[in-house]
């Protein structure tokens, strides 16, 4: 486990270095991107010096990295502390992503099991078909449809998220639409994984024995099939974390949800390496954490069965 942690951490550092280099390769830089139209070349050069952009990229990367242990994520091109920019945005995204992940897990497990109870029955075919269709829907289509139906036409739910003085959504109902917009496509994806894993496991010898023993189908499912399928299901959900964070960028824009999506999008426009790297580091850490958790689940479940 320790080696895995080290390997994942090293991967994160490489990823961050890549982020710095990629921003460097984009045309223009933070000094030009944040300048005003009337500024002369000399003014922009001065801004470049103020931002330290005249130094080599590796030096800047090292400076930024060396601040990490003290939780210092550097300063944005507009002079705001990156930790300030992310302090309410990142937790908000985590809440949204976490909620969507939980909903996805519950829904896909439920649907997958329901379908597995009657293999090739009507329910099974309906669930699998719908799952495939939904999986192909982009988040923004789902989001716009939800917005129109559940808010603008019916007035049941708030259309966008507004925030309070503490930086969090002012009402919990504002979380429903963005969470659903993220959950629906991911549930399509995960239901298929759950269904496939259950089908694989159903062919295992110990399951067949249980069926021949005359155990009721739901008991076979919960006690014999599901435990074996769990590692695959967990891995699928772990992969969803990355996709949920990616989808959040789109969904947050549509619902004006105050998360990292908006921060990241504007940081890219501004060529603002410290901000982009800050978002990447946090998102990377979360995904790494979830993947480790999935590994742990696999180790525990397979370990207990050996």
């Amino acid at each position, binding site marked *: 486990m320790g080696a895995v942690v080290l390997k994942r951490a090293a991967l994160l550092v490489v990823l961050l270095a890549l982020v710095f280099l990629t921003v460097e390769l984009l045309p223009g830089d933070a000094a030009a991107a944040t300048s005003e139209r*009337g*500024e002369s070349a000399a003014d922009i050069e001065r801004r470049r010096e103020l931002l330290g952009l005249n130094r080599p990229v590796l030096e800047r990367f090292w400076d930024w990295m060396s601040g990490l242990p003290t939780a210092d994520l550097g300063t944005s091109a507009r002079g705001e502390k990156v930790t300030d920019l992310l302090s309410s945005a990142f937790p908000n995204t985590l809440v949204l992503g976490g909620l969507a992940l939980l909903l996805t897990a519950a829904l896909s497990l439920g649907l997958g099991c329901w379908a597995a109870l009657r293999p090739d029955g009507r329910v099974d075919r309906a669930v699998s078909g719908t799952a495939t269709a939904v999986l192909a829907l982009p988040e923004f289509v789902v989001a716009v449809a939800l917005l129109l139906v559940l808010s603008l036409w019916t007035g049941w739910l708030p259309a966008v998220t507004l925030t309070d003085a503490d930086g969090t959504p002012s009402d919990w109902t504002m979380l429903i639409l963005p969470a659903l917009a993220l959950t629906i496509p991911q549930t399509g994806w995960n239901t298929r994984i759950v269904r496939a894993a259950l089908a694989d496991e159903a062919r295992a010898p110990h399951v067949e024995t249980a069926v021949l023993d005359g155990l009721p189908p739901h008991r076979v499912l919960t006690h014999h099939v599901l435990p074996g399928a769990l590692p695959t299901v967990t891995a699928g959900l772990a992969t969803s974390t990355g996709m949920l964070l990616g989808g959040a960028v789109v969904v947050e824009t549509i619902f004006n949800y105050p998360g990292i999506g908006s921060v990241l*999008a504007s940081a890219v426009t501004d060529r603002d390496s410290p901000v982009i790297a800050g978002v990447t580091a946090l998102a990377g850490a979360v995904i790494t954490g979830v993947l480790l958790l999935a590994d742990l689940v696999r180790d525990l479940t397979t370990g207990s069965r050996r």
Partner: protein
Amino acid sequence: MLWLGGAIGAGTLLTACGGGDEEPAASATGGTAKPVKGGTLRVGALGRAGAITRDPHGSQANESDYLILSLIYDTLTVPGAKPNTAPRLAASWKASDDLKTWRFTIAKGAKFHDGSPVTAEDLVFSLKRLRATPAGASRLPGIQEKNITAEGTDTVVLVSDYANAELPLLTRLTTFVIPKGTTDKDIAKAPGTGPFKLDWFRGGNARLVRNEDWYGGDVHLDAIEVKIFESPQAMASALLAGQIDLASNVGAVAARTAESRKDIQAVRRPNDMAMPIVMRTADGPFADAKVREALRLAVDREAMVKQVLSGYGTVANDILGTGDPAFDKSIPQRTRDLAKAKELLKEAKFDTSKTYELYTTEDISGLAESATLFATQVREAGVKVKVVKQESGTFWDKTWLKGDLYTTYWGTNDSVVFFASKTMVSDSGQNEAGWKDEAFDEAYEKAIGTADASARTQLLKQLQQIEYDSSGYLLWGMADGIDLAGAKVNGLPTLPGYGRVQLEQAWLAR
């Protein structure tokens, strides 16, 4: 000469700074009703979370930030209708005979939110701080830091390097005044002098409460809540769902969506934004004035306004600064004349077998669409144009100021001289078309050095005629600024550009 905000490539509309009015005109509804005191106005404004700034002299790309700052802090002057500069923190101003030395006198009773009076020292400190920013030279052009001094307790003296009849216009936008000695560390806490005081700020959202002691007159609203929105669509959704009362500068697309709703008022602010096509005059295929004339005759202006701006705009006449009180309406409006255009192209021996590239970006809505429609229209005159969309950063880096044919945009349209000085005088720093014209330079210098208003108007007419005849700009139309508001909102500003942030006269009907 007017300062232009707006980060390059940031897709910002902050370049906007049109006229506004000291006392904003009444809104579309209830214009004559008597204002009612009280209520909280929830305003949506565009902004990107990563580009937030709290510094009134900082590099501002967010409308939301600018709105918050201009409600808390006051500038020396503000946009007006006629004249286009109205007093604010500076109650009056006076120029020396040579138009180089300007004295601004502080309004009586002006106080910071903490109760301390505003002195000339605070103004000197703030203006010097502004001047010392990287954008300082363009925000206060021609005024060196050492030439900003105090005279007595209530007068600040600005000495320009050259005669400048429009200097007070320059102080309309970012000359926010903060107390003397405010450090960068404390900038977010600096008290202002404006109509509202900051209650809280978080992540681009803010709540502002009425300043009971504002020297500028009665403020009707109890509070204004500013909500940051990344996209105009989300802002329009919020308005339609009743989550906000005002969607500031939300644009034509949202206005069209809201047209069917009787309970939503669309406030149109004419002359808000110019998106001219730049034709390089210095060299290249458009260097011949006849070719440029031909393209100006080939464009179908009415179709452009109708399709690109959804009709929310007006046809323009290739002269920038349409909102200027001195804008020359006597110059005949150019209309489409394909026969004449073809003739001119033939005379100029223009190579119609070649395809010319027109560069554009998607910085603001409608810009890329304008390029595409233009390309279709000029094809009918025999000019083949291919539209090349560039990513914003690349566009400003590689194409702007250099390209042969490209789109640009400006949000300031209330001064002919501003455009002349910034983009057309031979040595201007942002000469977008590389245009050099001695007669134009001469007319400009005379105009800016003339104190007498009617004499200056005459000189400005000359200037506009030359611009109309031979500059590198094809200005087909002017976009309206569009705000959407709920039925209860009254007293909204109707002037273009930065006029929209002047919400101190707004009120809510009961």
